[in-house]
């Protein structure tokens, strides 16, 4: 069963002071995310990622279209007990301690009173805040608040977790822990829908990604497939001699760069034999030869590039 079905969800806002005109924040979006999938929603700032998440959470209302979560309408309160949400740069009631906040959210989410405290402790431990549970949130750093945000999102053991820029504000260690947490959620069979503009995180974590730009979904693809595609090029790494790139290789059209005592050269696949012949002739020691694969970054940039028909519109910005 699909965990999330977005059916032509569209959002426009009225802008302007005197003469109000609609500005499209999200063009009709159609997207299906299967149960147990980790889906990355990628795009630059202002692309429409947060708008999509706010629409799914019922924080803003769509101009058109609808969405279903776990087979029910997204506005159904019963569905909301099955979902967890971490907003971007979350703010919480700073008069509460972390424990009180989680207990409050547990109450609102219908976590039974019996065992709620234990669950709160468990969540604090899971995000590395066991020792800070009794501290008021106004004394928390940005990174600690992000951890509390993650704890509240998974507190009630939801089936679908929505995370808006979960790595934002975290140091490298914190980002690593969030990545581990998402991996754990995947292994528990949860569906995770997270927005990010950090491609390495998406590449490491996601089953599939969607690229959104200027309110429009530009492409959806499985990460494994995207990164498995070769680009008709090979990469040869070998030990250099006299800190020089062999002239024979340059004449084959290789893009080569010297790194320490090694040379890294990229050249068309069909010149592989000729390149190996140059290395053999010059007596150079080969380290590796690998086909150059697409990276998520290339796919992302390709999808963000305006198409001919869209160039004019992109220059003006999204709007109707």
């Amino acid at each position, binding site marked *: 069963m699909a965990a999330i079905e977005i059916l032509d969800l569209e959002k426009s806002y009225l802008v302007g002071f005197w003469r109000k005109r609609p500005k499209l924040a999200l063009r009709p979006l159609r997207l299906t995310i299967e149960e147990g999938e980790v889906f990355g929603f990628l795009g630059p700032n202002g692309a429409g990622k947060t708008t999509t998440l706010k629409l799914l959470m*019922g*924080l803003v209302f769509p101009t058109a279209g609808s969405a279903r979560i776990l087979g029910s309408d997204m506005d159904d309160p019963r569905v*909301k*007990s099955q979902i967890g949400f971490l907003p971007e740069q*979350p*703010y*919480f009631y700073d*008069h509460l301690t972390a424990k009180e906040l989680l207990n409050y959210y547990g109450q*609102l989410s*219908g976590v039974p009173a019996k065992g709620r405290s234990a669950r709160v402790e468990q969540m604090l431990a899971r995000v590395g805040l066991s020792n800070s549970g009794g501290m008021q949130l106004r004394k928390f750093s940005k990174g600690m608040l992000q951890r509390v945000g993650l704890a509240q999102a998974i507190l009630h053991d939801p089936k679908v977790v929505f995370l808006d820029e979960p790595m934002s504000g975290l140091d490298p260690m914190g980002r690593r822990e969030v990545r581990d947490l998402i991996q754990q959620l995947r292994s528990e069979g949860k569906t995770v829908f997270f927005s990010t503009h950090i491609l390495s995180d998406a590449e490491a974590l996601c089953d599939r990604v969607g690229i959104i730009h200027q309110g429009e979904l530009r492409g959806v693809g499985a990460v494994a497939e995207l990164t498995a595609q070769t680009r008709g090029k090979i990469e040869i790494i070998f030990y250099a001699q006299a800190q020089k790139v062999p002239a024979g290789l340059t004449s084959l059209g290789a893009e080569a760069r010297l790194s320490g005592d090694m040379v890294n050269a990229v050249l068309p696949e069909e010149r592989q034999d000729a390149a190996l012949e140059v290395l053999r002739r010059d007596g150079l020691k080969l380290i590796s030869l690998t086909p150059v694969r697409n990276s998520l970054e290339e796919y992302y940039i390709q999808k963000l590039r305006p198409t001919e028909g869209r160039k004019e519109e992109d220059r003006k910005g999204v709007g109707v």
Partner: protein
Amino acid sequence: MNSRIGYIAFNTFREAVRDRVLYNLIAFALLLSGAAILVGEISIDVERLVVVNLGLTAVSLFGVVIAIFIGIGLVSKEIDKRTLYTVLSRPVRRWEFVVGKFFGLTGTLVVNTFLMAVGVFLALLYVAHRFEKMDEWVLVALYFIVLQFLIVCALALFFSSFSTPLMSAVFTFALFVIGSLAEDLRGFARITQGVGGWIATAVAYLVPNFSALNVINQVAHGDAVSGRLILYNSVYALLYSAMAIAGAVLIFQHRNLK
């Protein structure tokens, strides 16, 4: 009560207490004890009248100021600080949130009024050395003050559901002032003819009738309050605040959060 409303109300109460809202009680206690000592020294036979008048007026004004300044931020602050995101993404309906907030603030005001009422009675005891039968009407005046708070909270919440905090404060305070003159307004409407008369009548009956809820002077003189007025005021305050809350819910129900 729906349990989620209760949780939201309790959290609102806890926030008010931790934000030191009840610190106003210190100012109130200082004002009242100072007044009681002063009155005890300079007044002859009217100590009770002065203490009841001053005490209840202070209870009313302190409460109204709290009701307005917390009430206008109840929803807008949560939208601005985005604390609402993690509440409304849970199985919480928007109307439950608004109603919970309303109960939280009125609960804060009831506790605040109770503590101030204790202060008023202590001051009374200080100046009169004993309680009298007519002091029970002071309790009725306090009950009417709480009813006023219900309406002020509901109005502050209503205005804040579509307006900025500053404008909400202005609107609510203006309605409190106009409503305190509602009886005069009704009198004016009765003697005005034509279109002006209709408009005056509409305004007079539309604004909350706070003057009917103000029996401070009456009880200060030891006069009784009729059971009929107690019933009428109770029903009126409940209906008026319910309508204002319903308006706030209706607007908030369709509001896009920024």
